[in-house]
């Protein structure tokens, strides 16, 4: 086992990795930007080193500086978390060359997973269905000619894209030309690559992903699915396990498909195969995320398996002790991502200082947080404050616990997604499990703001507060003061008079 791990990340995920390391008796090294000197991950790690100014490009993305810190602090491995350098094959390669273990797949595997076209080819090789489409680097003419073969609506996607960038839905051939231009230009400006491919656009699909775990010997397990259909701007908002539409038979087929994909690219590490699932429960492979997912806790709570510790053990060369038949699921888990954002203003980020921060607790509640009361959410990074996760014996209990926990979660000083999430947990369609990737957009449109119910209480409390403030400010009435004056004050007054 490693004796010291550098965590090349910040926020809640850095803290999650620190916790896993501490349990295993492994020392931890944090890195931080100048904006993060007071961040929780710096305070909770055994060691901490500054790697540069606030902007990520000058700090958390500086592979050279991070490797330098790893060498100097004698860390034997680097955990990349998610985001930042976690899916950067060049960084993995640099670690390999420096003789420091990168906790993730090999740089070769990462390259394959990072390319949409290469991973679609892999899926075809191992017989896993993908969304109908053409995954070569197509010329404009080829697209115009071959789009009708697939049938509209289609999706044009930048080959190097991600997070919804470089993606356009085309409903008829007249829209094609301008959509191609837009995709290529976004692909070029965001990822330095204008290559695009085309895909069938599925109507209201679910986004369901399968967690896998693969050790260095190639022993590969699937740990069950996560339903991640609740997204806005292609960013997940609520995730759960199991999916409300899952059957044991479909789980096995999707799980085996994920394992086949992992074996096909010599995968090692925890990883996720993302799928779209249509109304008839047909599934289509999208991509492999070759890292820990934000939403990994819902799988941890339903399987009882610690994914971060598993990653570390795999990277240290330990074989997985489990067989597939021993993976068992219990109950239901839901995760809500708590963002610093204004739900009433199109979810615009809302950085600032957490004047109050009181996270919830209780049976079945877990809060993976990266912040604290008094912390100033920086403007430079992802505005996620924490992930709130609720486990219940069934979906009903999990929703009930999540609803209570959200109502107990107090963040003042900035706006957050909490009030929005409270409403989602009370929505009849959500409660029925009737969700797909268009859910959030439709929900935002149909929901009405509730009338506030506690105005009078607010008024009464504010008046008493004002009264107490005013009482503190005002000197006590002269008559009362004369009787209550202390001998010390009298003596002081006497001295002051003498000194004149």
């Amino acid at each position, binding site marked *: 086992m490693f004796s010291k791990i550098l965590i090349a990340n910040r926020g809640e995920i850095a803290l999650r990795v620190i916790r896993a390391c501490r349990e295993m008796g492994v020392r931890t090294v944090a890195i931080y930007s100048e904006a993060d000197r007071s961040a929780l991950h710096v305070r909770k790690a055994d060691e901490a080193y500054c790697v540069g100014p606030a902007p990520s490009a000058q700090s958390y993305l500086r592979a050279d500086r991070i490797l330098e810190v790893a060498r100097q602090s004698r860390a034997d491995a680097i955990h990349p978390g998610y985001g930042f350098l976690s899916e950067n094959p060049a960084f993995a390669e640099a670690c390999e060359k420096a003789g420091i273990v990168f906790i993730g797949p090999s740089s070769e595997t990462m390259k394959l997973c990072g390319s949409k076209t290469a991973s679609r080819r892999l899926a075809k090789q191992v017989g896993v269905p993908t969304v109908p489409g053409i995954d070569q680097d197509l010329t404009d003419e080829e697209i115009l000619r071959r789009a009708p073969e697939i049938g509209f609506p289609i999706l044009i996607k930048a080959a190097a894209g991600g997070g919804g960038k470089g993606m356009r839905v085309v409903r008829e051939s007249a829209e094609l030309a301008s959509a191609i231009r837009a995709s290529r230009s976004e692909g070029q400006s965001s990822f330095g690559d204008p290559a695009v491919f085309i895909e069938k656009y599925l109507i209201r699909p679910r986004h369901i992903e399968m967690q896998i775990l693969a050790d260095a010997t190639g022993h590969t397990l699937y740990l069950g699915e996560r339903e991640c259909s609740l997204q806005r701007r292609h960013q997940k908002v609520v995730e759960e396990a199991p999916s409300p539409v899952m059957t044991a038979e479909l789980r096995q087929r999707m799980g085996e498909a994920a394992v086949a994909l992992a074996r096909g690219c010599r995968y090692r590490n925890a990883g996720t195969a993302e799928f779209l699932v249509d109304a008839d429960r047909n599934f289509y492979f999208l991509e492999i995320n070759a890292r820990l997912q934000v939403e990994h806790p819902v799988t941890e709570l339903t399987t009882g398996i610690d994914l971060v510790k598993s990653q570390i053990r795999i990277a240290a060369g330990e074989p997985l002790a489990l067989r597939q038949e021993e993976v068992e699921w219990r109950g239901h888990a839901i995760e809500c991502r708590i963002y610093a954002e204004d739900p009433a203003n199109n979810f615009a980020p*809302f950085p600032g200082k957490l004047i109050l921060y009181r996270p919830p607790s209780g049976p079945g509640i877990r809060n993976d947080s990266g912040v604290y009361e008094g912390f100033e959410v920086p403007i430079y990074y992802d505005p996620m404050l924490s992930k709130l996760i609720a486990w219940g014996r069934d979906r009903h209990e999990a929703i009930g616990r999540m609803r209570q926990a959200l109502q107990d979660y107090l963040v003042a000083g900035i706006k957050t997604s909490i009030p929005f999430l409270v409403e989602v947990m009370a929505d009849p369609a959500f409660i029925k499990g009737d969700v797909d990737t268009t859910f959030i957009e439709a929900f935002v449109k149909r929901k009405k703001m509730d009338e506030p119910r506690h105005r009078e209480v607010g008024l*009464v409390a504010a008046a008493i507060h004002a009264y107490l403030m005013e009482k503190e400010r005002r000197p006590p009435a002269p008559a009362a003061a004369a009787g209550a004056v202390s001998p010390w004050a009298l003596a002081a007054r006497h001295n002051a008079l003498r000194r004149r």
Partner: protein
Amino acid sequence: MEFFARIGDKEHRIEVTDLEGSHYRLSVDGVARDVDCVRISESCYSLILDGTSYEVDIIRGVNPYAVWVKGEVHDVEVLTEREKRLKAVTRKAAAAQEGRQVITAPMPSKVVRLLVAVGEQVNPGNGVIVVEAMKMENELRSTGAGTVREIRVKEGEAVVGGHPLVIIE
């Protein structure tokens, strides 16, 4: 003690009387209300009204107080008679300065682009400056007509929330 409180779009006259222990009697627009209220911390109060228990947090917000009750946030302005008179005076002074407009940063952000120069004429709704926070760009617009008098920042500069950016008169 007498207060004037504004919540939503209504103003109320509230009289607070200190009773024994943690008990208060309030008269809200002439209607009496007995309240058991304990201060738990700097911001937190426990209220019991006719047996019903509420936990309320009060912090200074944009309006004097942001008041949290069971997940709801209310902006409440509470003024003494004196403060109310003072405010009326200030409001008049502000009216005299009408036409002067200070565009401020809505949150900590970075200046991306200036869309106007000093001396330039702007009309209501004209974009003045673009700022970025958390990878999102935000165009700030003028609410009135006037001339750009002063630009207090340059492109690329990072500013705190509330920082004055452009002054239009």
